[in-house]
């Protein structure tokens, strides 16, 4: 894959992410705050972005969404499979709900 295609894919992923975020926020702001891992203030700002602004934000050479398993324990729980899958997912969800929300500085 050449770098131009790569940039194109990043742009698309970013745009998809932003659009999904807006959709979630507009449908149910409180649930979206939980799903996105942001606080209400940031959710409000994302909600107010215009399509033109979204396009500009998405055109970047870096991805906008971040990994939430910044912790070895959570990563191990999330990749669990088989009979431990359900219980591990609950464990991971408990730990992730305690992570701080993304907020504006």
């Amino acid at each position, binding site marked *: 894959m050449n770098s131009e295609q790569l940039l194109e894919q990043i742009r698309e992923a970013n745009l998809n992410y932003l659009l999904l975020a807006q959709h979630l926020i507009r449908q149910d702001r*409180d*649930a979206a705050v*939980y799903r996105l891992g942001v606080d209400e203030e940031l959710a409000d700002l994302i909600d107010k972005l215009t399509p033109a602004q979204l396009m500009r934000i998405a055109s970047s050479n870096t991805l906008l969404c971040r990994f939430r398993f910044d912790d070895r324990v959570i990563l191990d729980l999330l990749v669990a499979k088989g009979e431990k899958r359900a219980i591990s997912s*609950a464990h991971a*969800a408990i*730990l992730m709900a305690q992570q701080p*929300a993304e907020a504006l500085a």
Partner: protein
Amino acid sequence: MAKKSVVGEARQIQMAIELINLGARLQVLEAETTLSRERLLRLYKEVKGVSPPKGMLPFSTDWFITWQPNIHSSLFIEIYRYLQAHSKVDGIEATIKAYRLYLEHVTLHEMDPVLTLTRAWTLLRYFDSDMMKTTGCTRCNGQFVVHTHDLHERYICGLCAPPSRAGKTRKAAVLQAAQATT
């Protein structure tokens, strides 16, 4: 007495219907809405088609400490706290939203919804009255539901150190047998 607002009442009925559909007992509805008992009874019958179950609500705090219920209630509490901390939702609406997110998680991972809405609501009352709280597991740092007045030094949660028979239910055995034959 303040004059009753029709819009306000409509909103209350809407919320009562939502609660009934989520499986709330009549006592929850009585505590969370200003509608009269008779109206709630009629509403319940209309929505569910049957009379509400009678008798007391489950009142044991110990239930939340047992292995599987503890996982479910800790998950619910953490979602609830997240919403409280980061969004403006409050009161019974926060309970409903957190419970929906909990249900979503449970159904996604094909677990039984062990925690009913009534239990979740009761749990929050225990938290308010300081009968229960959460404490950090010394291994995974997660917060888990415990009795307020127990000792929690060097607490290890039921997920980091599951009891030997945990999760070995008849249902799990049947499922495993089915997987082995295929």
